[in-house]
């Protein structure tokens, strides 16, 4: 009885020591990499903002828009682009929507005259070679300058990618849902 108690204590101490050393290594790496990771994320965001609205001076985050949903499209981030103080030139929304092989992360830029400025797919897990073509310029290019009041229906006013109709439909539906969502809130804003 006595020896088994001792054994358990020794085992516990050994395991505790190993865990502590591992935790030490992890916390050192974490504290070294944390600022770098945050900086990378910030840089990626700024690049996306600059790419869509090159002439904007500042981007104002709209906290109250984040997390709003329309169907299965969820707003992840919302920025209003200003060219100078109080001159709104458009807004930038990043969102997720379910695709064929997983969640699609995408960003849309909308100008104040009611047109899409640009659509970017930032992350996705669609089938390589087929659905993955939703990131191609040939596909996303057709959304540039598209009127927000358009139908956004694949095979009508949106050309689908060959052999990837589901992915094409998914992203188109996501864009439409996102436009409706931000338009409605926009209207609510001015009330």
């Amino acid at each position, binding site marked *: 009885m006595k020896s088994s108690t001792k054994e358990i204590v020794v085992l516990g101490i050994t*395991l505790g020591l*190993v865990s502590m050393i*591992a935790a030490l290594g992890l916390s050192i790496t974490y504290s*070294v*990499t944390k600022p770098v990771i945050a900086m990378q*994320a910030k840089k990626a965001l700024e690049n996306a903002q600059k790419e869509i609205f090159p002439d904007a001076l500042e981007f104002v985050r709209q906290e109250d828009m984040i997390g709003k949903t329309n169907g299965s499209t969820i707003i992840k981030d919302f920025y209003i682009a200003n060219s100078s103080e109080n001159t709104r030139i458009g807004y930038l929304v990043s969102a997720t929507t379910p695709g064929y092989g997983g969640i699609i992360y995408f960003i849309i830029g909308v100008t104040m005259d009611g047109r899409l400025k640009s659509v970017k797919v930032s992350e996705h897990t669609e089938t*390589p*070679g087929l659905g993955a073509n939703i990131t191609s310029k040939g596909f996303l290019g057709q959304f540039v300058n598209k009127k927000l009041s358009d139908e956004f229906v694949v095979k009508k006013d949106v050309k689908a990618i060959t052999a990837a109709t589901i992915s094409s439909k998914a992203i188109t539906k996501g864009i439409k849902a996102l436009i409706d969502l931000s338009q409605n809130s926009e209207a609510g804003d001015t009330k």
Partner: protein
Amino acid sequence: MNNLKQIFLRGIFQDNPVLILMIGLCSVLAVSVTTINAIGMTAAYSFVLIGSELTISAIRNFIPKTLRIPIFIIVIGAFTTIIQLLVKAYSPSLDKSLGIFIPLIVVNCIIIGRVEAFSSKNNLIASLADSLGMSVGYGLVIVSIAFIRELLGSGTIFGIPVYPPFIKPMLIFVLPPGAFFIIGIEIAILNAINKKLSRNKGQ
């Protein structure tokens, strides 16, 4: 010295983790879509394997037998998290394309298998030779599969298109069946090489 060379070469030929032991196939099949991804995966995987094997070998005499699996998991998990943070910080694009497969190195059976079967029973230098051999063995397989899949399936080498525009690449090689075709062919080739090697040794 000869013995160490033997240990190292075993990881590439007789005991190649992917083609002969048939473990760790999940990451090989999933990541080998582009050569760059495969190289990144090999680097992450080698870091975890070499780190874990050396650590376990160094503390092998202090590990109580009953605690060996939990300790292996802690060590492997720590190294995997470290490499994941490093990749996220210094190569975000690689982090994006490898995605879930970096954290999944924790449960990669090659690593726990080598730690349990080899480094918990052998000294530091032998463990180093073993982990290097296993890393090279893994890397050669995944990078060669990725190179062939990328060339045939996407028509690119390191992301640069090499086909004239009128030739369509064979899509099936980017999809999972393509990976199985190539891995099957590589298994056959390595078995033929191994047969020849052992016959030469017999004579």
